[in-house]
Structure formats: structure tokens, C-alpha cells
């Protein structure tokens, strides 16, 4: 009993070390663990792939810093997707906190893909009014957002010359943390103007919106960090979401292994004790 290595008395610092490695490693070098893509994410991706290059798509960022960990990866991946497929991008936000968050993802990516502000993309910033603003965009986007985030009159922006209302938008990606958000976009915009609409929401919020996916009002839905990770997988660009999910997968697996080891040790020891008892 006393002699020999006893797994039950394994120094828990070894466990701590393994956990640390399991978390740090994927963050530094993405593992790209196999990930099954759920249908709503696949459909979203396929729909965007169908859009002919040069078309104009819209990103509606409706979230605030507290939900960034979950939603920012979606914003980044969508912008990357749009730029990769040479789609032109219009950003419009119903949440005051969103424009800077979107900007944070937009500018580096624009640089990476050599996109020109005002020609390939424009950030219209934030407009108050929620539903009223959405209806306004249905009539005239330039009138609803008179100036862009930088203060430039929208009528003077080249890209916006081609955008009057939703008829000119091939696809809308709504990244939403609450209200006004996905529900308003479906009820006010999708149902009225038959816009092709996709959405990314927090894991908590997602269940409320799957019905819209069933009914086809949403072409697809990204639910929480997992949805974002699946989207990144499809884009073959492992970002923060993938890294996060990788780390989660590894640690969860690691803990399961710990549990199994612990039990092997436990039974081995019990057998030994029985043997000694005899």
C-alpha cells in the first residue's frame, strides 16, 4: 500500500498544470479540433456564399461590451466573410454602444483585405428609434442615417449612391444581444420587405429565435460562442471563438480523463487492500 506510486495521492498541482496547458495551448496555436456544423450555421454560410461578388450586404450590430466575448467573433467572421467574397458592406446599428465595437473589427479587416472606406464599406453608426428607424430604412436608408459614423453626409458617400432601401441590400446579418434586435428585424423588416436575413445571438437568447429559422424568416442563426466557432470553421479561419471552444473541449476531455484515472487508481488500490487483507 505504502510502496509504489499511488495515483490517488497524485499531487493536484500536476492537475493544475495540465489544465493550464490545456487552456493556453489552443489560445496560442489553434488546434482546429473536429467540429460538427449545425444546420442553421451551415445554411447561413451557404446563403452568403450564393451572393454574387460586388453585391451590397448589411451588418446590423446591436450589442454592447458585456456581450462582446460571444458576439464580437461573429461580427469579425461575418466581415471577413463579406470581404473575402468581395461583397460591399454597410454597417448600421440600433444600439449606441455598437458602432465602436464594429469599428474595432472592421478597420483591421479592411486593411487586411485592402478595402476602401466609402467605396467598399461604410459604417453608418447609430440611430435612435428602434422600430421606427427600421421602418425608416425601409423607405430610405440615407434619410434615416443622414451622416455616417465619421460624420460624413451619407449622400456624399460613393457606396451609398447605390443604396436607397432594402431593395438594394442582398443580405442582412443581424448580430443581436437583445431588444431592439433580431425579433424587430424579423417582424419589421424581413416580413415587410422580404429581406434575406441572418442572425447571430447570445447562447442564452438563441432558443427564442430558432422558430424563425424553422419558418425560414431567418436563413440561419449563430447561437453563442459555439455558433461563432462553427461559422469560423466553415470560413476556415479559426478565430477567438474556435480557440475558446477548443480550450473548452480539451479541458472538458481532460477532466473526464482525470475522473477515469482516479477510478482506476481507486479500484487498483482496493484490490491491493483486499489482497493484503487475505
Amino acid at each position, binding site marked *: 500500500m505504502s510502496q509504489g506510486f499511488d495515483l490517488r495521492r497524485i499531487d493536484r*498541482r500536476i492537475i*493544475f498544470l495540465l489544465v493550464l496547458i490545456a*487552456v493556453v495551448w489552443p*489560445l*496560442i496555436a489553434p488546434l482546429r479540433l473536429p467540429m460538427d456544423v449545425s444546420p442553421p450555421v451551415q445554411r447561413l454560410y451557404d446563403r452568403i456564399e450564393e451572393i454574387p461578388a460586388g453585391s451590397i450586404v448589411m451588418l446590423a450590430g446591436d450589442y454592447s461590451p458585456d456581450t462582446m*466575448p460571444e458576439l464580437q467573433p461573429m461580427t469579425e467572421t461575418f466581415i471577413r466573410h463579406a470581404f473575402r467574397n468581395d461583397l460591399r458592406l454597410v454597417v448600421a446599428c440600433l444600439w449606441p454602444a455598437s458602432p465602436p465595437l464594429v469599428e474595432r473589427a472592421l478597420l483591421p479587416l479592411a486593411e487586411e483585405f485592402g478595402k476602401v472606406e466609402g467605396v467598399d464599406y461604410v459604417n453608418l453608426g447609430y440611430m435612435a428609434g428602434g422600430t421606427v428607424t427600421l421602418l425608416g430604412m425601409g423607405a430610405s436608408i440615407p434619410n434615416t442615417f443622414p451622416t455616417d459614423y465619421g460624420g460624413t453626409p451619407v449622400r456624399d458617400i460613393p457606396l451609398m449612391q447605390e443604396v436607397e432601401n432594402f431593395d438594394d441590400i442582398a443580405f442582412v446579418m443581424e448580430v443581436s444581444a437583445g431588444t431592439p434586435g433580431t425579433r424587430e428585424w424579423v417582424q419589421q423588416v424581413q416580413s415587410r420587405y422580404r429581406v434575406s436575413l441572418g442572425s447571430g445571438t447570445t447562447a442564452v437568447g438563441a432558443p427564442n429565435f430558432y422558430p424563425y429559422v424553422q419558418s425560414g424568416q431567418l436563413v440561419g442563426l449563430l447561437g453563442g460562442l459555439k455558433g461563432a466557432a462553427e461559422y469560423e470553421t466553415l470560413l476556415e479561419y479559426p478565430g477567438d471563438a474556435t480557440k475558446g471552444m477548443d480550450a*473548452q473541449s480539451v479541458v*472538458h476531455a481532460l*477532466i473526464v480523463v482525470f475522473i477515469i484515472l482516479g477510478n482506476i487508481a481507486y479500484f487498483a488500490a482496493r484490490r491491493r487492500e483486499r489482497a493484503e487483507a487475505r
Partner: protein
Amino acid sequence: MGTLIWTTIGAILTLSVYSFLYKDNPFYKFAEHLVVGISAGYYLVIYYYNFIDPNVVTPVFQLRLGDQAIGFGSGAWWLALIPGLLGLLLYTRFFPRVAWVARWSLGIYVGGYAGLGISPVMQARVIEQIGANALPLTSVTNVLIVVGLLGTLAYFFFSMKHKGILGALARVGIVFLMVGFGASFGYTVMSRISLLIGRVSFLLHDWLQVV
């Protein structure tokens, strides 16, 4: 630059706390005593500015200036004095002869919240549960819920010996409790890992800027 300094401080403190995982050590002791001191000062100040000043000091003094401003948007100015006095009463415990007065404020506080707590608890955890669990045993899931609930409640029977039917039910209850505990243990792992990921990316991204 300023941010770099603060980030570095934050990083050093973060590492000092993690050093605890190896063993108790001066860095951890430092971090521990630091945070205790800071939070003590923090709460002292915040409690004053957020509660005492706006709700007691300001109203009372405003009145003295002849302003009609009053307590918490209701009642008369002296209403603002009452909580102030109640707060002061707590300190009578340092004067043995009147120490017992300190119980008045405690009485008000505890009694008030005891009364306040009862009805919502009755509503959310008993009444609405009756509605939610009045399930005909027509589906597997309903059976699971009803049996599980009965068993757990049986386990919490105190005034009878756990024998016979009650004993059997109580054992079922334990089974459900164990499954429940195991499940929510596993369910919590994810959020705890996220916390660690958050700190690690603070170290790697914000501080070292390697990823």
C-alpha cells in the same frame, strides 16, 4: 504608456494570485492582504457616497437650507433622519449600558426582510410549482419530473422515520439528487473555464500581446 503600467500591475497581481496554486507564498499573501485593504476602503467610500450621503446627509441638510427636498422622494424630511439614527444605534453596542439598543435597528432590518421574503418565496417556489408540476403521468418526461419531485420532497421529510414507502421514495429522491448534482457540476465547468480563458487572454493578449 500609463495603460501599460496599469496592465503590468494587473498582470503581476494576476500572477501572484495564481502562485497560490503552487503553494501559499509571499506573493499570494501580498495580493490577499492588498485586495482586503483596497476593498475595505472601497466599500467604506462607496457606501457613504451611494447610500448615506444622498439618503441621509443631503436631505436633512437641504431642509436646513429651507429647501423642501425630502427623503427618498416620499415622506417628510425627518423620514431621512430615521435611517440615519437607526444606523447610529448600531454603534451603541460599544457602550455596555445601552448596548441593547443596537438590537432595535437589527430588529427592524431582519424583521422587515423576513416579512418581505415570505410571500415571494411562497409564490415562486410553492404556488407556481404546484401549477408547473400538476402533470398527468402520460409521458416519460412527466413521470420523471413527478417521481423526482416526490422523491426529493420525501427525502426532506423530517418528522417521520424513513421506512417503508417513505423510505423507498426518499431513496429515489437521493438518486435524483445525485444525478442533479453531477449534472450541474458538469454544466458549471464551462463557465469556470471561460473565466480562466478570460484571464489568460488578458495576460497573453492585453499584457504580453503575443496573441
